[in-house]
């Protein structure tokens, strides 16, 4: 064989042996490759020598088959061995040890995660238990409220008439229909042994007997009302909630015994289970539950078809779809409209009970959920950056273990596990914080907040929090994990001198840019929500709540059969309250401002200049209140025209006060005072025009208001307002004592300052503002710390280069700018990403904002500038260190 030919064959063999080695994984190749190539060369040499070219080809084929088999086997080996020997446990142990060795990193990361996840847990619990959980009724999807809408009056979600409920009950698609009166405070006496306990107010709901079968909830003790236990002359039976029963001593023998409501005996026939929850929607905001249920004393079919006095609740028959039910309800509405409203356009509409319950809080909870999700994203980005830094510190270790045969999965696992351990611990701490925090939150929410009692974190929520932490940690660990797994010793050596950071620096920058973007979105949302709260805090409610104390004293006709007795009792209460030292004036009203509920009646101004001849316009439905003389002065309401109710009351002359909106409609040029108004089949004379006392929203007028003289309607349970020259909070004992001097059997309920009543109306807004604002600040802090760290580590890395620059005469400003420029670019990129992100969030946000627009340029520009300023400051602070570099020292260190 010629030398040239054997040389060519050797070259082919050598190339082939190189190719054969490609079958093996990198680590194996690096370790065994050189020796194997020698062995291949020997083997192929021998093959040629012994059997010529055919022998060599045979040897090539055999070597190829062998390499394929063993190469694949070797690649599969680590995963098989890893699965067999369960190295997860050992790795986890190692991760924990490493974290213990870096306590500052571990603690700060866990604390950040804990706080973030606690926020998540609280919002998650609220969203899941309030927005998502089904109502605790049998087949909850089949339960609907029916509301009257008066489109020509701009009134929606108004109460239905008794006749409506009666008509609805006749529908084929309806299994049950129940009428529910608004819950009212009544005085409970005579419960328990001897009835010697202090009178107190309980909330009573008067309902149709159909209510309980409709909800499909069975009593815990005794029974619920039978179908006939309603109407005139009905037996005085009462069903108690578990809460009231428990507060009366939780005595099961109470069933069958008698309690007194407003002095009237009622036999307790049943007690509901503790899980029973039922609230009636009242007007436009809030819902109210009751402590005790009794049945109607009237026949629904005989009720006034014009008067919306009842909330109507329906149970659809099984298999009846929503559309079918809505259509049937609407058809009843059309009949009512034709027969009683001269086809003005009255409609009846059915709304799912759950949907109705959460409609007011849905926007706020949605905003909180979005904010919590954004915060989680910031946490992931932040944790990713931190783990990336940690992985970078171990770059050499990874590359060397990789070269020594650790496969990529094993290295990725180390980082992912680190994230998972941190995430799970953070989740556990977050769940702990949230357990405490959600109880505080439940306290902070307004009492009208739906399902307020379900806001506390439950075990399922805690589990979800820990799992979320774990997933978040794994996600955050994956990016640095994949990066580390792809490290190769060769590439590390190649970049060792450049110290540029390469791929991981790009990753970190991406994380920081997304953190900046997310922070911007959160900060904009937070600022807008806080500005909304500010708008509301500045809003004029139409009265002056400072130094006013409120309370309620239930007075009903059952208790005082003669109207004069009731009137005299109101007088006595008024005198007793006025006699309290420090009290400057006393007034009373059927419903205080900001309660979100009122009776509604149609009214007429015969002969007013504003009448158009159209009945729609001339006969509006208004909010009706009963107010005693002194109320306007006590509350500090503003009188636009005329004189409010004066003492003494002259019987026989009915007086009303109206609000500005009503006066403007009917008397555009003024002159409402002295005119007659028709309401409740009565005629009364307007004595004054008031600024509207805000009843629903703090920032906007509600329905037109009419105040009837309370002295004429003595049976109303009055809420009292007391203006004092001393601190309202110190008045409570004196108030109770004063009411009891009038009559010791009267209950005194809800004694609290008017400022607290106003505050309650703001609670939900304040909560949203606190949570979203808090989330935004945490995001900002994390971002600032991230930028600080990046610039600081860049300076450490580039110290040598910087020293050279300074030594060559670069000015300090230029060098500083060079360092900050990077951050400036990240801020710019972040803000550019944030704009489309914010557009997505805007729509959710719009529904909770008042008096400020989502595209408010001042807010957006301010937040952008502020964020940029803080980001640059966070970069400038560490960058200043560069000025302390002494070129000679730095260069000598190298």
């Amino acid at each position: 064989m010629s030398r040239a030919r054997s040389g060519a064959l050797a070259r082919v063999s050598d190339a082939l042996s190189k190719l054969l080695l490609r079958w093996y994984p990198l680590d194996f190749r690096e370790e065994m490759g050189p020796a194997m190539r020698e062995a291949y060369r020997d083997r192929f040499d021998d093959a040629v020598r012994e059997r010529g070219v055919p022998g060599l080809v045979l040897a090539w084929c055999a070597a190829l088959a062998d390499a394929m088999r063993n190469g694949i086997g070797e690649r599969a080996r680590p995963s098989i061995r890893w699965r067999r020997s369960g190295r997860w446990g050992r790795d986890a142990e190692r991760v924990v040890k490493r974290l213990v060795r870096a306590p500052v990193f571990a603690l700060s990361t866990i604390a950040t995660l804990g706080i973030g996840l606690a926020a998540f847990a609280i919002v998650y619990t609220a969203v899941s238990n309030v927005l998502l959980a089904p109502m605790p009724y049998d087949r909850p999807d089949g339960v609907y409220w029916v509301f009257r809408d008066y489109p020509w009056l701009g009134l929606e979600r108004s109460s239905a008439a008794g006749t409506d409920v009666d008509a609805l009950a006749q529908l084929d698609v309806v299994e049950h229909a129940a009428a529910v009166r608004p819950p009212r405070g009544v005085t409970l006496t005579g419960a328990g042994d001897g009835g010697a306990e202090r009178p107190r107010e309980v909330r009573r709901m008067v309902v149709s007997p159909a209510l309980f079968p409709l909800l499909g909830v069975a009593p815990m003790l005794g029974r619920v009302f039978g179908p006939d236990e309603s109407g005139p002359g009905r037996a005085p039976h009462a069903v108690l909630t578990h809460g009231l029963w428990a507060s009366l001593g939780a005595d099961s023998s109470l069933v069958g015994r008698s309690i007194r409501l407003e002095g009237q005996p009622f036999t307790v026939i049943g007690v509901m289970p503790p899980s029973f929850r039922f609230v009636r929607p009242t007007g436009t905001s809030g819902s109210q539950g009751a402590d005790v249920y009794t049945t109607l004393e009237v026949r629904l079919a005989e009720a006034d078809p014009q008067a919306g006095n009842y909330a109507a609740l329906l149970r659809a028959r099984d298999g009846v779809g929503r559309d079918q039910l809505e259509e049937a309800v609407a058809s009843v509405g059309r009949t009512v409209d034709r027969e009683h409203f001269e086809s003005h356009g009255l409609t009846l509409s059915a709304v799912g009970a759950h949907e109705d319950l959460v409609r007011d809080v849905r926007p706020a909870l949605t905003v909180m959920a979005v904010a919590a999700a954004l915060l989680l994203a910031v946490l992931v980005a932040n944790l990713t950056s931190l783990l990336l830094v940690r992985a970078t510190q171990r770059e050499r270790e990874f590359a060397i273990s990789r070269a020594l045969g650790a496969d990529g999965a094993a290295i990725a696992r180390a980082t992912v596990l680190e994230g998972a351990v941190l995430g799970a611990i953070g989740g556990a701490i977050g769940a702990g914080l949230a357990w405490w925090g959600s109880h505080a939150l439940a306290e902070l929410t307004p009492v009208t907040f739906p399902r307020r009692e379900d806001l506390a974190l439950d075990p399922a929520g805690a589990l979800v929090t820990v799992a979320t932490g774990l997933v978040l940690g794994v996600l955050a660990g994956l990016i640095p994990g994949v990066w580390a797994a792809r490290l190769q010793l060769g590439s590390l050596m190649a970049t060792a001198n450049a110290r540029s950071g390469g791929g991981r620096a790009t990753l970190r920058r991406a994380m920081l840019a997304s953190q900046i973007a997310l922070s911007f979105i959160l900060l904009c949302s937070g600022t807008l929500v806080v500005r909304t709260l500010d708008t509301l805090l500045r809003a004029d409610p139409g009265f002056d709540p400072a130094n006013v104390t409120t309370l309620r004293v239930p007075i009903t006709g059952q208790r005082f059969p003669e109207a004069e007795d009731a009137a005299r009792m109101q007088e006595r209460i008024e005198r007793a309250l006025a006699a309290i030292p420090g009290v400057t004036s006393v007034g009373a009203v059927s419903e205080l401002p900001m309660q979100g509920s009122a009776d509604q009646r149609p009214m007429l101004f015969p002969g007013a200049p504003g009448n158009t001849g159209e009945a729609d316009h001339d006969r509006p439905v208004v909010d009706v209140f009963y107010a005693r003389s002194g109320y306007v002065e006590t509350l500090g309401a503003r009188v636009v025209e005329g004189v409010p109710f004066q003492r003494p009351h002259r019987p026989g002359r009915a007086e009303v006060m109206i609000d500005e909106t009503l006066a403007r409609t009917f008397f555009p040029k003024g002159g409402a005072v002295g005119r007659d108004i028709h309401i409740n089949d009565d005629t009364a004379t307007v004595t004054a025009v008031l600024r509207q006392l805000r009843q629903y929203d703090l920032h906007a007028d509600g329905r037109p208001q009419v105040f009837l003289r309370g002295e004429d309607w003595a049976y109303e349970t009055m809420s009292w307002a007391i203006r004092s020259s001393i601190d309202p909070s110190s008045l409570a004992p004196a108030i109770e004592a004063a009411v009891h001097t009038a009559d010791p059997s009267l209950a005194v309920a809800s004694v609290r300052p008017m400022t607290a009543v106003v505050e309650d109306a703001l609670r939900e807004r304040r909560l949203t503002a606190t949570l979203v604002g808090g989330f935004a600040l945490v995001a900002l802090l994390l971002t600032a710390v991230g930028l600080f760290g990046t610039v600081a580590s860049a300076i450490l890395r580039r110290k040598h280069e910087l020293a050279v620059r300074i030594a060559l005469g670069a000015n300090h400003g230029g060098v500083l700018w060079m360092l900050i420029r990077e951050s400036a670019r990240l801020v710019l990129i972040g803000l550019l990403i944030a704009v489309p992100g914010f557009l997505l969030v805007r729509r959710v946000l719009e529904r909770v904002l008042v008096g400020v627009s989502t595209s408010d340029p001042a807010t957006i520009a301010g937040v952008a500038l502020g964020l940029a300023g803080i980001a640059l400051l966070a970069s400038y602070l560490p960058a200043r260190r560069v000025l302390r570099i002494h070129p000679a020292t730095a260069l000598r260190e190298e």
Partner: protein
Amino acid sequence: MDRERSFERFLPLRPVEFGILLSLGEAERHGYGMIKDAAKRGIVRAPDVGTLYRALRRMTDQGLIVESDRRSAHDVDDERRQHYRITPLGRRVARGQALQFAALARAAVEGGLLEGGAL
């Protein structure tokens, strides 16, 4: 006892592994040397390069053999030609495997599968 047990977990050896230990039991050798040795013995089919080196790496990890510093005189200058040496553990494992084979062979004779003379 402990020693006995400590090598038992390596048994049974694969043919290529027993071949390597057998080959290194005589002398330190490099990879291709072991292949040639096995071919010379001819008891089992000689392993190919890949099979051999995978086994070498595995057995090095297990501590049955070690890489040796020694070079044979003619390839002193060849850095890539890695030699291997058997460890005491490797020797015990090989011995244990051989004893097992012997016991099996005796059992085969007693069971009539094998002529007595074959031993």
